[in-house]
């Protein structure tokens, strides 16, 4: 399988281990990632907070590049994914806006591109059975809280591959890897997004509630597919703990890190040693598995 690939700004920097593990996962599952040549930023929240046309034009430049390749587009960052899906949907329904956008980007674009998330790729295109067949070191005994956040599932009209209030695709992927995901209440709550930077007294509290809820439900880890969620739950853990006076040691994994590890890759090869909150210890506690491809 070949797919166009849009890493997005954060997978090259603050979410480097997500980028590493997406590449490893693709390799394991026989997916060829074809990185979009000279891709640019999707504009994120700052664009749609400032200019409606810009918030559509910045994604559209990348979608036009993907359209030229004639392939589906993988956007692992949940925020980029959401902006791309919103743009595709709007431009499919509004020929006038499509003309304006084509003028703004100075490129031809007919809104036929199709962006997919990591969850859609794994649970849909690849399939759970194919994933399960690659598992060498099942995540036996791991009890992750599957955390979707906002952008992967909302609004349902853009995203549409899973339920916006009670999604289950990540849980099913975890089960295929041998883990036992917990049932919990904060699957789709907001991590605080950039409020953790701009209004920490509000944003960090939101992240704290997610961590507390996962812990109370007996989870031993959190899984995410969003760089922003990971940043707020992992990198900002110290700030959250200080503000709320709590001590929560739950590691936060990217879903692709767990896929790779379950398929026999070492934790270091997918950057599990690069988190802020210690995350390698829980992996070391997993049963050894058959070890046939380990190392």
């Amino acid at each position, binding site marked *: 399988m070949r797919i166009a690939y849009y890493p997005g700004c954060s997978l090259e*920097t*603050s979410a480097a281990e997500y980028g590493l593990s997406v590449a490893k996962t693709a390799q394991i599952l026989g997916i060829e990632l074809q990185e979009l040549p000279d891709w640019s930023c999707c504009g994120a929240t*700052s664009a749609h*907070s400032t200019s409606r046309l810009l918030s559509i034009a910045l994604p559209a*430049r990348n979608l036009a590049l993907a359209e030229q390749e004639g392939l589906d587009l993988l956007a692992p960052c949940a925020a980029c994914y959401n902006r791309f899906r919103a743009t595709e949907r709007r431009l499919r329904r509004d020929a006038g806006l499509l003309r304006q956008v084509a003028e*703004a980007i100075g490129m031809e674009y007919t809104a036929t591109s199709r962006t997919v998330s990591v969850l859609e790729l794994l649970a849909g295109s690849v399939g759970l059975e194919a994933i399960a067949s690659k598992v060498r070191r099942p995540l036996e005994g791991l009890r992750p809280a599957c955390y979707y956040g906002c952008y992967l599932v909302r609004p349902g009209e853009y995203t549409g591959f899973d339920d916006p209030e009670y999604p289950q695709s990540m849980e099913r992927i975890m089960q295929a890897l041998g883990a036992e995901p917990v049932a919990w209440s904060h699957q789709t709550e907001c991590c605080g997004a950039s409020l953790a930077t701009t*209004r920490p007294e509000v944003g960090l509290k939101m992240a704290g509630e997610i961590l507390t809820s996962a812990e109370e439900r007996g989870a031993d880890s959190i899984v995410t597919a969003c760089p922003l969620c990971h940043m707020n739950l992992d*990198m900002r853990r110290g700030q959250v703990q200080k503000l709320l006076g709590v001590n929560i040691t739950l590691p936060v994994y990217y879903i692709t890190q767990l896929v790779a590890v379950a398929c026999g890759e070492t934790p270091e090869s997918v950057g599990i040693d690069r988190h802020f909150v210690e995350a390698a210890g829980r992996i070391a506690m997993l049963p050894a598995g058959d070890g046939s491809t380990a190392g």
Partner: protein
Amino acid sequence: METTLAPSKEKKELIRRIERSSGTEISRCYQCGKCSAGCPASSGMDYTPRQVIRLLQLEMVDEALRAGSIWLCATCEICTTRCPRGVDVASLMDALRREAWRRGMITDRRVAVFNDVFLKSVARFGRVFEAGLLLEYNLKTGQLFKDTELGLPMLQRGKMHPLPTIIRGHNAVRQICDRVQRMEAEERCE
């Protein structure tokens, strides 16, 4: 009498503009409060999402544009997903933010400065330069040491680059930003 009628007409026009920009109709809202109940940021808001819509229904558009809430909204889309009347509350918050920005009626400078610095980084390099963005944000908001404890560990973990990546098409991105600005100034789009 005329002096009260004229502003009201202006306000009506402005509210229609906000409705068009957001693609949603404020009259559909029947004030059930479901949006506010699910809003994760409402505890820090001066007006809850439901109240912001009420302000617009009552033509108190100035108050709505000055509400701190529009800058606290994280665009999590919970309100939009749950509204039983199909009101796109998140999009309305977004449209209010854009209108407030356009008019310079900025209640929360920190969020507005962040957005501005972010987009300038994109226009300049084609991609976001995280380290530069955070530094400039701190300088412009007078919080010199904000998040600096994260900087060194990020560098050590290869999670931050001290220099920007400049894409070959950075001129193309700059041109997109310029063209959008021109089209907006000519009021050919909203």
